[in-house]
């Protein structure tokens, strides 16, 4: 387990800020200092107390610490995991609400079509990172807006409005890849 390098930190925060702002708040929380650590190409978010204890464990035996946010690919790109959803959702700037019918479809990993779009925050830019919610305000995953809000109004029902990035269905679908 090692701290992130500068580059890694930058990459990651860029990704995160795409979704939400005030990422600084993640680090300086009222109940203690939290930090990111890299372990086997995955980024983990944990409090400092846990950090201390985690040093007891040998590298190959340690599987997970705190919450995994995402991982760095071989080409050093950062891929956000669904496991970060709980932390990011409160900070989301732009949200998309999905109709109940399209909920299941999104949870299966499909993109959101216009027909399934319930609500969308105003002024959403194209290719803006968004958090996808169900109509009951339950966060379902992350995405990238394919069209800006204005365009969404005009476009035909079968076109994609949100690109799927991560959804909670992955917990079942791809349990293995979480670690």
């Amino acid at each position: 387990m090692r701290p992130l390098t500068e580059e890694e930190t930058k990459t990651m925060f860029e990704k995160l800020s795409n979704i939400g702002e005030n990422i600084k708040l993640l680090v300086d929380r009222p109940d203690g200092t939290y930090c990111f650590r890299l372990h086997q190409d995955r980024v983990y978010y944990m409090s400092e107390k846990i950090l201390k204890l985690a040093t007891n464990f040998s590298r190959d035996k340690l599987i997970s610490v705190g919450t995994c946010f995402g991982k760095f690919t071989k080409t050093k790109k950062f891929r956000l995991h669904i496991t970060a959803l709980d932390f990011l959702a409160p900070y989301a700037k732009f949200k998309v609400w999905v109709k109940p019918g399209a909920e299941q479809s999104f949870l299966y990993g499909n993109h959101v079509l216009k027909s399934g779009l319930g609500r969308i925050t105003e002024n959403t830019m194209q290719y803006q990172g968004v958090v996808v919610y169900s109509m009951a305000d339950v966060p379902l995953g992350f995405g990238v807006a394919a069209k800006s809000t204005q365009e969404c109004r005009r476009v035909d029902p079968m076109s994609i409005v949100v690109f799927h990035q991560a959804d909670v269905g992955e917990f079942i679908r791809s349990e293995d890849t979480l670690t």
Partner: protein
Amino acid sequence: MCKRSDHHCCRALWNHGPSIYSLPSGEGHADAGAAGGQVVRHWIFNHLQQLLRTVSGSDAQFVQQLNFGLRVGVMGRKLDPTNKVKRGPGKKARKQQGADVELANFIDTEEDAGPKRLSSRARKRAAKRVENLKKPENVAEKQPKKGYSDDNSKWLKPTKRKRKMDEPESEDDSEEMWEDEEEEEEEQVLLPKKGGKKQEKKSADLELKNLEEEEEDDDDEMVDDYGAEDDGSGQEEEDSDGDDLLPIERAAKKEKKLKESMGLSSDDDNEEDEEEDDDGDEKHESDSDMDEEETIQTNVDDFDTFRLPSAEESEKEGALSLDLKTVHQRIKDNIDVLCNFSAKREEGKARVDYLSLLKKDLCTYYSYNEFLIEKLMDLFPLSELVDFLEANEIQRPVTIRTNTLKTRRRDLAQALINRGVNLDPLGKWSKVGLVIYDSSVPIGATPEYLAGHYMLQGASSFLPVMALSPQEGELVLDMSSAPGGKTSYMAQLMRNTGVIVANDANAERLKSVVGNLHRLGVTNSVVSNYDGRQFPKVMGGFDRVLLDAPCSGTGVIAKDPAVKTSKDEPDILRSAHLQKELLLSAIDSVNATSSTGGYLVYCTCSIMVEENEWVVDYALKKRNIKLVPTGLDFGKEGFTSFKKFRFHPSLQLTRRFYPHSHNMDGFFVAKFKKFSNVIPSASVGKEDETTEASEAAEVTDSPKDKPSKSKAANHTAPAKTDALKQNTKTNGAAAKKPANIKIKGQQGSQTGPKKAKIAKMDGETVKGAQAKNPAKKTPVQTTVSKTVKKDGSRFEKKQTKKGKSPLKMKNRMGKNKFKKMKHKFQKNK
């Protein structure tokens, strides 16, 4: 001549006729009386002599009496005809009367011919006597006073009370006897068996012994038992039943018998069964009678015909494919017999035979291997055994646990109901559990599930976490955490504070742990992949530890039927061995001096005693722990003795749960409190591998003589040690002991078998020092890693005297006593 007929003298003489010397007339008598006794006597004498000459030889008696009379006359008693003889019971009647009276008594015999002259009362008595004799003959024709007036009177005789007076009974009996005879003669067809017997009896003994026999029989009749109290008659099954059955059951039985008899007056037999004596009647029992008795209890019938198959028959059975229904029925009957063995057993068959057949049948019917069935038969009484086996065939209800980190139970329930799920709260013992009855959507894939609002978890898995009840901010270890249900429950109880270490030896299953923890939003977790037995080396000093040990899985047969056939004795023992090791490691990971904790929960999903109580008992002996109440108010208590095992009595604080009684998976929960971090060594002279191996933990041992003197003085500051050293020296016994200078975090380099008595902080000394510990521990202690030193120092500082372990009470010596001894030795010196 005296003509009065009631004068004895006169009469007698008178009877003999005129040929006899005629007696003087009445005037003569009077004259005699008047003249005085002398003259009379003389006169009588003369007369009598004359009489004697005239009387013939046949009247010898008469003569005798006369002689007597003469003699009397000679003696001088007055023979006064006017004298009234006193009669009756009074005193005067008892006096010897005059001759005439006495004579009359003897001469009376001749006068019997005619009817006696009776007094009024005598006449009455005579009349009564005559009446009594006549009565039975009269009454015989009448209807009996007792008995039923309806059609059943012919065969149905009421039983009588024994206690009534015999006299009236005997009258009645004799009534009945007469009545019976008459009726039986009429109804011979209807009374083939016992009636016949009775007839035989009666006819044989009619003349003399009738009444006696009847009384015997009727004594039996008099027993008010409604036919249930059998006379044996070869019906052993019914004997104890009679005692056990309620009246209504007996009546029902009677009715059954009625129905089953074909044209036989079975009730008559019934009645007569009761009435008959045991002796000698059994031979008369016809086969139909036997059959009747048997059909009442069809299982007995089966068994009698079933005959606990011999070797050949069981081979035959093996060849045939036995119908499962017959096997099932046989199982039920077998258990029925075994439960009431003395009553229902077959003659000559031992209990073992029944049991072995039952075992075989259970194996066939429920598809278990013999080993497991045997174990289950040891665990459960027969009545419960079938319940348990049946419960293992069906699934337990699906239960979920609300994730209180993200939602509340009622919100979740609402959301699920909206999706079309039928659910209910789990029970009053859980605030987060919900039981799912049915659902139109897959419960494991709802958006709520994916969002981490709940977790699919068996109800029994709630229990160890509830027992452990981790507090906020604690350091908790879950040694065998996959798939993470208990870990996440602990996290939600701790509100994501503190740290939870989730460990599992299986890397594959750890993925599910990670997934679940992330899904449920647990942020304070560390997931590791160690073998639990090595864990103390890695990290220790936890406040609480949960060990859900890998086991044989005999409690979750419903989930995994493969357990039925795959488990064997070595499997169980292997599991037990592993569990023991894990438990010791878990114990060593707990920090006894934790301010909020020091608790350990050991649980398994098995019901075997070898994996549960035995392991717990082993740990109690090996470590400074004690059992504490689990806090679970339901569940069966653990065994304190089982077959050849004898466990510590505190084992009753552990809890067992069964599928058939609690409707959750078979489970076992035990909660320990660790009261000392010291690892006790093995008993004197024995090298204990496990203690050595596991000693590499954070525990810093004191070279104590008595194991687990909890607050060792050797952990005190050096200054104190010196003071204590002095104390020990003053103690004569301890004089030869080398100084026990304890360096912090390390064992004193004590060599030599005799260790000084280590004076405790409070100045007490322990007698009878045994110092194996240091010798053994020195090699181990040197390997104590420096990382542990930190913990050790922590312990040293924090150790306070909490109280002696109960085992060590015996070696205490009170303060005063110590002082006295000290003085004594000082004086000696």
